[in-house]
Protein backbone atom coordinates (compact mmCIF):
# COMPACT_ATOMS: atom_id res chain seq x y z
CA UNK A 1 0.00 0.00 0.00
CA UNK A 2 2.91 2.33 -0.68
CA UNK A 3 0.95 4.46 -3.10
CA UNK A 4 -1.34 5.47 -0.27
CA UNK A 5 1.49 7.17 1.58
CA UNK A 6 1.05 10.21 -0.61
CA UNK A 7 -2.61 10.64 0.29
CA UNK A 8 -3.59 14.06 1.47
CA UNK A 9 -6.24 14.39 4.17
CA UNK A 10 -9.06 14.82 1.63
CA UNK A 11 -8.01 11.78 -0.40
CA UNK A 12 -7.65 9.74 2.77
CA UNK A 13 -11.23 10.55 3.68
CA UNK A 14 -12.47 9.55 0.20
CA UNK A 15 -10.55 6.26 0.09
CA UNK A 16 -11.22 5.20 3.66
CA UNK A 17 -14.87 6.18 3.27
CA UNK A 18 -15.21 3.95 0.21
CA UNK A 19 -13.51 1.04 1.91
CA UNK A 20 -14.81 1.23 5.47
CA UNK A 21 -17.73 3.59 5.94
CA UNK A 22 -20.44 0.97 5.69
CA UNK A 23 -18.71 -1.53 8.00
CA UNK A 24 -17.96 1.20 10.55
CA UNK A 25 -21.59 2.34 10.54
CA UNK A 26 -22.69 -1.24 11.06
CA UNK A 27 -20.22 -1.61 13.90
CA UNK A 28 -21.52 1.57 15.54
CA UNK A 29 -25.12 0.46 14.92
CA UNK A 30 -24.44 -2.78 16.81
CA UNK A 31 -22.91 -0.84 19.69
CA UNK A 32 -25.63 1.81 19.73
CA UNK A 33 -28.65 -0.01 18.37
CA UNK A 34 -29.53 3.12 16.46
CA UNK A 35 -28.58 3.62 12.81
CA UNK A 36 -29.02 7.40 12.73
CA UNK A 37 -26.68 8.01 15.65
CA UNK A 38 -24.33 5.38 14.24
CA UNK A 39 -23.90 7.42 11.07
CA UNK A 40 -23.32 10.63 13.04
CA UNK A 41 -20.70 8.93 15.19
CA UNK A 42 -18.83 7.55 12.17
CA UNK A 43 -18.97 10.90 10.36
CA UNK A 44 -17.56 12.61 13.48
CA UNK A 45 -14.75 10.06 13.49
CA UNK A 46 -13.91 10.79 9.83
CA UNK A 47 -13.90 14.55 10.48
CA UNK A 48 -11.55 14.02 13.45
CA UNK A 49 -9.30 11.80 11.35
CA UNK A 50 -9.17 14.46 8.64
CA UNK A 51 -8.04 17.01 11.23
CA UNK A 52 -5.33 14.70 12.55
CA UNK A 53 -4.25 13.31 9.17
CA UNK A 54 -0.88 15.03 9.18
CA UNK A 55 0.19 12.98 12.16
CA UNK A 56 -1.63 9.82 11.13
CA UNK A 57 -0.65 9.70 7.44
CA UNK A 58 -0.84 5.92 7.34
CA UNK A 59 -3.90 4.02 6.12
CA UNK A 60 -3.47 1.15 8.56
CA UNK A 61 -3.17 3.42 11.55
CA UNK A 62 -6.01 5.49 10.15
CA UNK A 63 -8.36 2.51 10.19
CA UNK A 64 -7.29 1.63 13.74
CA UNK A 65 -7.84 5.27 14.69
CA UNK A 66 -11.29 5.33 13.08
CA UNK A 67 -12.29 2.15 14.85
CA UNK A 68 -11.10 3.39 18.24
CA UNK A 69 -12.80 6.69 17.62
CA UNK A 70 -16.08 5.00 16.68
CA UNK A 71 -16.01 2.74 19.76
CA UNK A 72 -15.23 5.69 22.02
CA UNK A 73 -17.85 7.97 20.52
CA UNK A 74 -20.47 5.23 20.58
CA UNK A 75 -19.80 4.68 24.26
CA UNK A 76 -20.08 8.38 24.86
CA UNK A 77 -23.35 8.61 22.91
CA UNK A 78 -24.76 5.66 24.84
CA UNK A 79 -23.73 7.22 28.11
CA UNK A 80 -25.51 10.43 27.22
CA UNK A 81 -28.57 8.54 26.15
CA UNK A 82 -28.54 6.60 29.42
CA UNK A 83 -28.24 9.82 31.37
CA UNK A 84 -31.12 11.35 29.45
CA UNK A 85 -33.40 8.38 29.77
CA UNK A 86 -32.16 6.79 32.96
CA UNK A 87 -33.48 3.55 31.55
CA UNK A 88 -31.76 0.48 30.17
CA UNK A 89 -31.35 0.15 26.39
CA UNK A 90 -34.45 0.29 24.24
CA UNK A 91 -36.05 -2.67 22.63
CA UNK A 92 -35.45 -2.92 18.90
CA UNK A 93 -37.81 -0.58 17.06
CA UNK A 94 -36.99 -2.41 13.84
CA UNK A 95 -37.93 -5.99 14.51
CA UNK A 96 -35.99 -8.41 12.37
CA UNK A 97 -37.44 -9.07 8.98
CA UNK A 98 -39.67 -12.10 8.90
CA UNK A 99 -38.35 -13.46 5.67
CA UNK A 100 -36.11 -16.04 7.34
CA UNK A 101 -38.92 -17.08 9.54
CA UNK A 102 -40.30 -15.73 12.76
CA UNK A 103 -38.40 -18.20 14.90
CA UNK A 104 -35.04 -17.14 13.59
CA UNK A 105 -35.96 -13.47 14.04
CA UNK A 106 -37.00 -14.19 17.60
CA UNK A 107 -33.72 -15.99 18.27
CA UNK A 108 -31.73 -13.01 16.94
CA UNK A 109 -33.77 -10.50 18.92
CA UNK A 110 -33.23 -12.54 22.07
CA UNK A 111 -29.47 -12.71 21.56
CA UNK A 112 -29.24 -8.99 20.76
CA UNK A 113 -31.25 -8.10 23.87
CA UNK A 114 -28.91 -10.22 25.99
CA UNK A 115 -25.92 -8.55 24.35
CA UNK A 116 -27.28 -5.08 25.10
CA UNK A 117 -27.76 -5.99 28.75
CA UNK A 118 -24.02 -6.64 29.18
CA UNK A 119 -21.67 -4.08 30.76
CA UNK A 120 -20.21 -1.68 28.19
CA UNK A 121 -16.76 -3.18 27.78
CA UNK A 122 -17.91 -6.77 27.58
CA UNK A 123 -20.37 -5.76 24.88
CA UNK A 124 -17.70 -3.84 22.97
CA UNK A 125 -15.25 -6.72 23.10
CA UNK A 126 -17.87 -9.23 21.90
CA UNK A 127 -18.97 -7.00 19.01
CA UNK A 128 -15.39 -6.36 17.90
CA UNK A 129 -14.46 -10.02 18.17
CA UNK A 130 -17.52 -11.80 16.80
CA UNK A 131 -18.85 -9.22 14.40
CA UNK A 132 -15.78 -7.30 13.24
CA UNK A 133 -13.53 -10.38 13.59
CA UNK A 134 -10.68 -8.34 15.06
CA UNK A 135 -7.64 -9.88 16.74
CA UNK A 136 -7.11 -9.48 20.47
CA UNK A 137 -4.41 -6.89 19.79
CA UNK A 138 -6.68 -4.86 17.50
CA UNK A 139 -9.53 -5.01 20.00
CA UNK A 140 -7.16 -3.84 22.74
CA UNK A 141 -6.20 -0.88 20.52
CA UNK A 142 -9.76 -0.02 19.60
CA UNK A 143 -10.99 0.05 23.19
CA UNK A 144 -7.82 1.30 24.81
CA UNK A 145 -7.39 -1.60 27.24
CA UNK A 146 -4.76 -4.32 27.63
CA UNK A 147 -4.88 -7.64 25.77
CA UNK A 148 -5.33 -9.41 29.06
CA UNK A 149 -8.38 -7.26 29.72
CA UNK A 150 -9.77 -8.10 26.27
CA UNK A 151 -9.46 -11.81 27.04
CA UNK A 152 -11.11 -11.40 30.40
CA UNK A 153 -13.98 -9.23 29.10
CA UNK A 154 -14.57 -11.67 26.23
CA UNK A 155 -14.82 -14.71 28.44
CA UNK A 156 -16.93 -12.97 31.08
CA UNK A 157 -19.16 -11.52 28.39
CA UNK A 158 -19.71 -14.84 26.69
CA UNK A 159 -20.47 -16.56 29.99
CA UNK A 160 -22.93 -13.84 31.01
CA UNK A 161 -24.58 -14.03 27.59
CA UNK A 162 -24.98 -17.79 27.84
CA UNK A 163 -26.43 -17.54 31.34
CA UNK A 164 -28.99 -14.96 30.22
CA UNK A 165 -29.95 -16.98 27.16
CA UNK A 166 -30.36 -20.16 29.21
CA UNK A 167 -32.65 -18.30 31.57
CA UNK A 168 -34.87 -16.96 28.82
CA UNK A 169 -35.04 -20.03 26.59
Amino acid at each position, binding site marked *: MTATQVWGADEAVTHLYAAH*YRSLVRLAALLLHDTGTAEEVVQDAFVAMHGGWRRLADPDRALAYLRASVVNRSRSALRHRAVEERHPPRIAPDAASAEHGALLALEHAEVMAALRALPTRQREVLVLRYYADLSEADIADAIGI*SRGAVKSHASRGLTALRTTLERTS
Partner: protein
Amino acid sequence: MTHHEDDITAARLRAAMTAEADMVHPTDDGLSNIQARTEAGDRPWWRHPGVLAVAAAAVLGLAVGGLAFALGGDDDGNDVVASDPTTSQATPSESSPTPSETPSASESPVPVEGDVYVYYVMDDGQSPRLYRELRPNPGMDPVTAALSTLLAEPAVDPDYSSPWQGTELLEYSVDGDTATVDLGRFVSVGAQAEQVAVQQVVYTVTANDKSVKKVQLLVGGEAPQSGHSDWSEPVARAPMVDVQGLIWLLGPTEGEIVSSPVEITGYGTAFEATVSWEVRRAGSDEVVAEGFTNGGSMGEFGEFADTVELEPGDYEIRAFESSAEDGRPLHVDTKTFTVE
Protein backbone atom coordinates in the same frame (compact mmCIF):
# COMPACT_ATOMS: atom_id res chain seq x y z
CA MET B 1 -18.15 -23.68 31.47
CA THR B 2 -16.88 -25.68 28.54
CA HIS B 3 -15.36 -24.52 25.30
CA HIS B 4 -18.14 -26.22 23.45
CA GLU B 5 -20.86 -24.20 25.19
CA ASP B 6 -18.93 -20.99 24.60
CA ASP B 7 -18.56 -21.87 20.93
CA ILE B 8 -22.31 -22.36 20.62
CA THR B 9 -23.01 -19.03 22.34
CA ALA B 10 -20.44 -17.33 20.11
CA ALA B 11 -22.03 -18.81 17.00
CA ARG B 12 -25.50 -17.61 18.04
CA LEU B 13 -24.08 -14.19 18.77
CA ARG B 14 -22.29 -14.02 15.43
CA ALA B 15 -25.44 -14.97 13.54
CA ALA B 16 -27.60 -12.47 15.41
CA MET B 17 -25.13 -9.60 14.94
CA THR B 18 -24.65 -10.36 11.26
CA ALA B 19 -28.40 -10.40 10.74
CA GLU B 20 -28.84 -7.10 12.58
CA ALA B 21 -25.89 -5.47 10.79
CA ASP B 22 -27.25 -6.57 7.41
CA MET B 23 -30.35 -4.52 8.10
CA VAL B 24 -28.27 -1.37 8.46
CA HIS B 25 -28.00 0.54 5.22
CA PRO B 26 -26.14 3.82 5.54
CA THR B 27 -27.60 6.72 3.59
CA ASP B 28 -25.80 7.94 0.49
CA ASP B 29 -24.88 11.40 1.73
CA GLY B 30 -22.29 10.36 4.34
CA LEU B 31 -19.30 11.39 2.26
CA SER B 32 -20.73 14.77 1.30
CA ASN B 33 -21.64 15.45 4.95
CA ILE B 34 -18.07 14.69 6.00
CA GLN B 35 -16.58 16.74 3.17
CA ALA B 36 -18.79 19.71 3.95
CA ARG B 37 -17.46 19.65 7.50
CA THR B 38 -13.78 19.13 6.66
CA GLU B 39 -13.92 21.91 4.11
CA ALA B 40 -15.54 24.17 6.69
CA GLY B 41 -12.49 23.55 8.86
CA ASP B 42 -10.23 24.98 6.18
CA ARG B 43 -12.30 28.09 5.72
CA PRO B 44 -11.02 31.37 7.11
CA TRP B 45 -12.55 31.99 10.50
CA TRP B 46 -14.75 34.88 9.37
CA ARG B 47 -16.57 32.62 6.95
CA HIS B 48 -17.10 29.90 9.52
CA PRO B 49 -20.80 29.41 10.31
CA GLY B 50 -20.08 29.34 14.06
CA VAL B 51 -18.47 32.75 13.91
CA LEU B 52 -21.40 34.15 11.99
CA ALA B 53 -23.73 32.82 14.64
CA VAL B 54 -21.60 34.37 17.37
CA ALA B 55 -21.44 37.66 15.50
CA ALA B 56 -25.19 37.60 14.99
CA ALA B 57 -25.71 36.85 18.68
CA ALA B 58 -23.45 39.76 19.60
CA VAL B 59 -25.35 42.10 17.30
CA LEU B 60 -28.59 41.01 18.88
CA GLY B 61 -27.14 41.53 22.32
CA LEU B 62 -27.45 37.86 23.14
CA ALA B 63 -23.85 37.23 24.07
CA VAL B 64 -23.54 35.65 27.48
CA GLY B 65 -21.16 37.04 30.04
CA GLY B 66 -18.12 34.92 30.68
CA LEU B 67 -16.46 34.09 33.95
CA ALA B 68 -14.07 36.68 35.24
CA PHE B 69 -10.72 35.06 34.65
CA ALA B 70 -7.46 36.31 36.01
CA LEU B 71 -5.48 35.50 32.93
CA GLY B 72 -2.52 37.79 33.24
CA GLY B 73 0.40 37.51 35.57
CA ASP B 74 2.81 34.78 36.30
CA ASP B 75 0.77 32.57 38.56
CA ASP B 76 3.34 30.09 39.68
CA GLY B 77 1.02 28.91 42.37
CA ASN B 78 -1.01 27.07 39.80
CA ASP B 79 1.90 24.90 38.89
CA VAL B 80 0.94 22.62 41.69
CA VAL B 81 -1.56 20.96 39.40
CA ALA B 82 1.10 20.17 36.88
CA SER B 83 3.15 18.36 39.43
CA ASP B 84 2.48 14.98 40.88
CA PRO B 85 -0.38 15.42 43.33
CA THR B 86 1.60 13.42 45.87
CA THR B 87 3.84 16.43 46.27
CA SER B 88 0.90 18.70 46.96
CA GLN B 89 1.79 21.34 49.41
CA ALA B 90 0.10 23.45 52.03
CA THR B 91 -1.19 26.53 50.29
CA PRO B 92 -2.26 29.45 52.41
CA SER B 93 -5.97 29.13 51.90
CA GLU B 94 -7.68 32.08 50.38
CA SER B 95 -11.18 32.12 49.15
CA SER B 96 -10.44 34.84 46.64
CA PRO B 97 -9.80 33.51 43.15
CA THR B 98 -6.53 35.36 42.76
CA PRO B 99 -3.47 33.25 42.14
CA SER B 100 -1.96 32.03 45.38
CA GLU B 101 1.60 32.66 46.36
CA THR B 102 2.73 29.07 46.64
CA PRO B 103 6.23 28.44 45.39
CA SER B 104 6.53 26.22 42.35
CA ALA B 105 6.45 22.54 43.00
CA SER B 106 9.92 21.13 42.90
CA GLU B 107 8.94 17.90 41.15
CA SER B 108 9.04 17.81 37.40
CA PRO B 109 5.57 17.99 35.89
CA VAL B 110 6.58 15.64 33.11
CA PRO B 111 4.74 12.40 33.83
CA VAL B 112 6.26 8.93 33.80
CA GLU B 113 8.36 8.29 30.77
CA GLY B 114 6.35 7.56 27.69
CA ASP B 115 3.18 9.18 28.98
CA VAL B 116 1.88 12.73 28.77
CA TYR B 117 -0.81 14.75 30.54
CA VAL B 118 -3.78 15.72 28.41
CA TYR B 119 -6.57 17.94 29.69
CA TYR B 120 -10.16 17.45 28.60
CA VAL B 121 -13.37 19.30 29.39
CA MET B 122 -16.41 18.14 31.31
CA ASP B 123 -19.34 20.19 32.49
CA ASP B 124 -19.68 19.26 36.15
CA GLY B 125 -23.28 20.45 36.24
CA GLN B 126 -22.35 24.03 37.07
CA SER B 127 -19.61 24.96 34.64
CA PRO B 128 -17.22 23.39 32.15
CA ARG B 129 -13.98 22.42 33.85
CA LEU B 130 -10.69 20.70 33.06
CA TYR B 131 -9.97 17.05 33.76
CA ARG B 132 -6.65 15.34 33.19
CA GLU B 133 -5.80 12.02 31.59
CA LEU B 134 -2.46 10.26 31.41
CA ARG B 135 -2.03 9.19 27.80
CA PRO B 136 0.71 7.31 25.96
CA ASN B 137 3.29 9.27 24.00
CA PRO B 138 3.83 7.63 20.60
CA GLY B 139 7.38 8.97 20.61
CA MET B 140 7.25 12.68 19.92
CA ASP B 141 8.32 15.48 22.20
CA PRO B 142 5.91 15.48 25.17
CA VAL B 143 4.09 18.75 24.37
CA THR B 144 3.53 17.86 20.71
CA ALA B 145 2.33 14.40 21.72
CA ALA B 146 -0.05 15.85 24.31
CA LEU B 147 -1.40 18.49 21.94
CA SER B 148 -1.83 15.95 19.13
CA THR B 149 -3.88 13.78 21.48
CA LEU B 150 -5.92 16.74 22.71
CA LEU B 151 -6.68 17.93 19.16
CA ALA B 152 -7.36 14.63 17.47
CA GLU B 153 -8.32 11.96 19.95
CA PRO B 154 -11.29 11.56 22.20
CA ALA B 155 -10.75 11.18 25.93
CA VAL B 156 -10.68 7.67 27.39
CA ASP B 157 -13.34 8.73 29.89
CA PRO B 158 -16.53 9.05 27.83
CA ASP B 159 -17.74 11.90 30.06
CA TYR B 160 -14.86 14.10 28.95
CA SER B 161 -14.64 15.86 25.61
CA SER B 162 -12.59 18.39 23.73
CA PRO B 163 -13.97 21.35 21.78
CA TRP B 164 -10.77 21.17 19.72
CA GLN B 165 -11.53 17.73 18.27
CA GLY B 166 -10.50 17.64 14.62
CA THR B 167 -8.21 20.67 14.81
CA GLU B 168 -4.85 20.52 13.11
CA LEU B 169 -1.63 21.43 14.92
CA LEU B 170 0.27 23.59 12.42
CA GLU B 171 3.27 24.45 14.55
CA TYR B 172 4.57 24.37 18.09
CA SER B 173 7.54 26.40 19.26
CA VAL B 174 8.98 27.79 22.49
CA ASP B 175 10.80 31.05 23.06
CA GLY B 176 11.94 31.64 26.64
CA ASP B 177 8.97 30.99 28.91
CA THR B 178 6.41 31.54 26.14
CA ALA B 179 5.18 28.76 23.87
CA THR B 180 3.41 29.36 20.58
CA VAL B 181 0.69 26.96 19.46
CA ASP B 182 -0.43 27.51 15.88
CA LEU B 183 -3.69 25.75 15.11
CA GLY B 184 -5.72 25.05 12.00
CA ARG B 185 -8.84 26.62 13.47
CA PHE B 186 -10.24 28.24 16.60
CA VAL B 187 -13.07 26.84 18.69
CA SER B 188 -16.50 28.27 18.01
CA VAL B 189 -18.26 27.97 21.34
CA GLY B 190 -19.76 30.30 23.95
CA ALA B 191 -17.67 32.79 25.91
CA GLN B 192 -17.23 30.67 29.03
CA ALA B 193 -16.54 27.47 27.08
CA GLU B 194 -14.01 29.40 25.00
CA GLN B 195 -12.11 30.50 28.13
CA VAL B 196 -12.00 26.89 29.29
CA ALA B 197 -10.97 25.66 25.82
CA VAL B 198 -8.03 28.09 25.76
CA GLN B 199 -7.07 27.04 29.30
CA GLN B 200 -7.29 23.41 28.18
CA VAL B 201 -4.43 24.12 25.77
CA VAL B 202 -2.52 26.26 28.29
CA TYR B 203 -2.78 23.63 31.05
CA THR B 204 -1.80 20.83 28.68
CA VAL B 205 1.27 22.67 27.35
CA THR B 206 2.47 23.83 30.76
CA ALA B 207 1.88 20.43 32.37
CA ASN B 208 4.22 18.76 29.89
CA ASP B 209 6.89 21.47 29.74
CA LYS B 210 7.58 23.03 33.09
CA SER B 211 9.64 25.86 31.64
CA VAL B 212 6.64 27.26 29.77
CA LYS B 213 4.61 29.85 31.69
CA LYS B 214 2.53 31.39 28.93
CA VAL B 215 1.03 30.23 25.69
CA GLN B 216 0.39 32.32 22.60
CA LEU B 217 -2.39 30.82 20.53
CA LEU B 218 -2.38 31.43 16.79
CA VAL B 219 -4.69 30.33 14.03
CA GLY B 220 -2.87 30.00 10.72
CA GLY B 221 -0.13 32.32 12.03
CA GLU B 222 -2.49 35.07 13.21
CA ALA B 223 -4.07 35.92 16.55
CA PRO B 224 -7.35 34.03 16.99
CA GLN B 225 -10.47 36.06 16.29
CA SER B 226 -13.14 35.00 18.71
CA GLY B 227 -15.92 37.53 19.10
CA HIS B 228 -15.75 36.94 22.88
CA SER B 229 -12.26 37.79 24.08
CA ASP B 230 -8.95 39.20 22.95
CA TRP B 231 -6.40 36.41 22.50
CA SER B 232 -3.65 38.51 20.91
CA GLU B 233 -1.43 38.26 24.01
CA PRO B 234 0.15 35.13 25.56
CA VAL B 235 -2.09 33.49 28.15
CA ALA B 236 -0.95 32.09 31.52
CA ARG B 237 -2.76 29.46 33.55
CA ALA B 238 -6.00 30.71 35.08
CA PRO B 239 -6.35 29.90 38.79
CA MET B 240 -7.13 26.24 39.34
CA VAL B 241 -10.21 27.02 41.34
CA ASP B 242 -11.67 28.79 38.30
CA VAL B 243 -11.04 26.20 35.61
CA GLN B 244 -9.89 22.89 37.03
CA GLY B 245 -12.32 20.08 37.83
CA LEU B 246 -13.00 20.44 41.56
CA ILE B 247 -12.89 16.69 42.08
CA TRP B 248 -10.71 14.45 39.97
CA LEU B 249 -11.01 10.72 40.35
CA LEU B 250 -7.55 9.45 39.37
CA GLY B 251 -7.76 5.80 40.37
CA PRO B 252 -9.14 3.45 39.29
CA THR B 253 -8.72 4.86 35.78
CA GLU B 254 -11.47 4.46 33.18
CA GLY B 255 -11.80 0.82 32.13
CA GLU B 256 -9.06 -0.35 34.47
CA ILE B 257 -8.95 -3.91 35.78
CA VAL B 258 -7.96 -3.98 39.42
CA SER B 259 -7.94 -6.41 42.29
CA SER B 260 -9.65 -6.03 45.64
CA PRO B 261 -9.08 -4.16 47.92
CA VAL B 262 -9.40 -1.37 45.39
CA GLU B 263 -7.47 1.81 45.97
CA ILE B 264 -9.44 4.97 45.34
CA THR B 265 -7.32 8.01 44.66
CA GLY B 266 -8.05 11.50 43.49
CA TYR B 267 -7.30 15.16 43.73
CA GLY B 268 -9.60 18.01 44.52
CA THR B 269 -11.19 20.51 46.80
CA ALA B 270 -14.50 20.39 48.66
CA PHE B 271 -16.44 22.08 51.43
CA GLU B 272 -14.75 21.15 54.72
CA ALA B 273 -12.47 18.96 52.59
CA THR B 274 -15.01 16.12 52.52
CA VAL B 275 -14.99 14.08 49.31
CA SER B 276 -17.66 11.37 49.13
CA TRP B 277 -17.54 8.27 46.96
CA GLU B 278 -20.01 5.60 45.89
CA VAL B 279 -19.49 2.34 44.04
CA ARG B 280 -22.33 0.88 41.97
CA ARG B 281 -22.61 -2.31 39.99
CA ALA B 282 -22.19 -1.43 36.32
CA GLY B 283 -25.48 -0.60 34.69
CA SER B 284 -27.47 -0.55 37.92
CA ASP B 285 -28.36 1.96 40.59
CA GLU B 286 -27.43 -0.43 43.36
CA VAL B 287 -24.80 1.20 45.57
CA VAL B 288 -22.56 -1.59 46.86
CA ALA B 289 -20.12 0.53 48.83
CA GLU B 290 -19.75 4.14 49.89
CA GLY B 291 -17.60 6.31 52.06
CA PHE B 292 -15.91 9.63 52.39
CA THR B 293 -12.41 10.91 52.81
CA ASN B 294 -10.52 14.18 53.01
CA GLY B 295 -9.26 16.23 50.08
CA GLY B 296 -8.40 19.92 49.98
CA SER B 297 -10.78 22.69 50.99
CA MET B 298 -11.40 26.39 50.54
CA GLY B 299 -10.17 26.41 46.97
CA GLU B 300 -6.98 24.63 47.95
CA PHE B 301 -6.56 21.35 46.10
CA GLY B 302 -5.35 18.23 47.83
CA GLU B 303 -5.11 14.51 47.27
CA PHE B 304 -7.61 12.07 48.66
CA ALA B 305 -7.39 8.30 49.03
CA ASP B 306 -9.46 5.45 50.36
CA THR B 307 -9.82 1.70 49.84
CA VAL B 308 -12.81 -0.52 49.27
CA GLU B 309 -13.24 -4.30 49.22
CA LEU B 310 -15.26 -5.50 46.24
CA GLU B 311 -16.20 -8.87 44.80
CA PRO B 312 -15.14 -9.57 41.21
CA GLY B 313 -17.39 -7.75 38.74
CA ASP B 314 -17.91 -4.56 36.79
CA TYR B 315 -18.45 -1.33 38.69
CA GLU B 316 -18.87 2.39 38.39
CA ILE B 317 -17.35 4.65 41.00
CA ARG B 318 -18.30 8.26 41.49
CA ALA B 319 -16.48 10.80 43.64
CA PHE B 320 -18.25 14.00 44.55
CA GLU B 321 -18.91 16.71 47.07
CA SER B 322 -22.16 16.33 49.00
CA SER B 323 -24.02 19.61 48.82
CA ALA B 324 -23.94 21.28 52.23
CA GLU B 325 -27.48 22.44 51.49
CA ASP B 326 -29.32 19.30 50.52
CA GLY B 327 -26.77 16.48 50.18
CA ARG B 328 -27.03 16.51 46.40
CA PRO B 329 -23.85 15.23 44.69
CA LEU B 330 -21.83 18.12 43.21
CA HIS B 331 -18.80 18.11 40.88
CA VAL B 332 -19.17 14.40 40.16
CA ASP B 333 -16.38 12.49 38.41
CA THR B 334 -17.07 8.85 37.47
CA LYS B 335 -15.03 5.91 36.24
CA THR B 336 -16.05 2.42 35.24
CA PHE B 337 -13.71 -0.39 36.20
CA THR B 338 -13.55 -4.14 36.70
CA VAL B 339 -12.50 -6.11 39.76
CA GLU B 340 -10.87 -9.42 38.85
